[in-house]
């Protein structure tokens, strides 16, 4: 055997020695992706999180939840909220107008008093 052929053989043997046992199987598994069995195990692991009596708990929870509001209910609720906001806004507006008038009146009264005091009369 020629020395270079021998050298190639040695190199190949050295390179092959770097591969761990089961290399071919690993490559095939990687190329194919997870097997059906692995998927099954995975999905079963998720399914195992459901504790016994799950269906009863769901039905009980569904019974105890308040009913879904209908469109009319939601509409009535919106109208009610809007009306309440409008009443509060009108009340606050009228109250602020009232306070403003009282303040103006008090100022005018003061001015009138000053005018009366300053005016010596006929």
């Amino acid at each position, binding site marked *: 055997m020629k020395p270079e052929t021998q050298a190639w053989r040695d190199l190949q043997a050295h390179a092959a020695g770097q591969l761990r046992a089961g290399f071919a199987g690993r490559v095939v598994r*990687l190329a194919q*992706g997870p097997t059906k069995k692995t998927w099954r195990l*995975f999905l079963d692991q*998720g399914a195992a999180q*459901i504790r016994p009596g*799950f269906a009863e708990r769901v*039905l009980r929870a569904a019974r105890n939840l308040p009913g879904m509001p209908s469109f009319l209910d939601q509409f009535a609720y919106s109208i009610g909220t809007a009306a309440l906001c409008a009443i509060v806004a009108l009340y606050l507006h009228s109250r602020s107008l009232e306070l403003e008038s009282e303040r103006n009146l008090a100022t005018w009264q003061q001015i009138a008093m000053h005018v009366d005091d300053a005016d010596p009369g006929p």
Partner: protein
Amino acid sequence: MDSTATNALAELVRRAQKGDEAAQHELIVSYQHRVAGFIYAMTNRSDYVEDLAQQVFIKMIRALEGLQAPAQFESWLFRLARNTCIDQLRRQKLRRIFLPFANEHENIPEASGAVGTEELDALRHALAQLRPQDRALLALVQEGRSHAEIAEVLSTSVAAVKARLHRAREHLREHYQPQS
């Protein structure tokens, strides 16, 4: 599913739609494990499974009346499950934005080797690298749904499902690296 089973399911759904609690109970028992597996695949979190499954089935009971075609029940149920998971993942994302320090508590990794095989851990890791939409797609395939049914669940076309499925499988294979 053969036609007898389809008819039996449609009949069961009709009874459940009329408010028959026994029928609703039977539907939950029949689908709880499949829905739980699907939720696990989508969220990759075992601690979310029961809570989300409960939300899905409560939504199912409340919305069942509006289901027009009882024969389409399975696709409809998995669409509910998918939407519930996506809502949960969105909420989780928002929480991470507003509560950055909760991050470390939220991302508790699944106990490695809890079920045992290296392949299982590798699959879990690979799924965690995919988008939730792709995880849903792969989980639906494992559920045995046809491309047409998946298209219905995801409200898209069969061609789009095929293309997305191809990409999702590629991504899964890229990240799937069992150690042994």
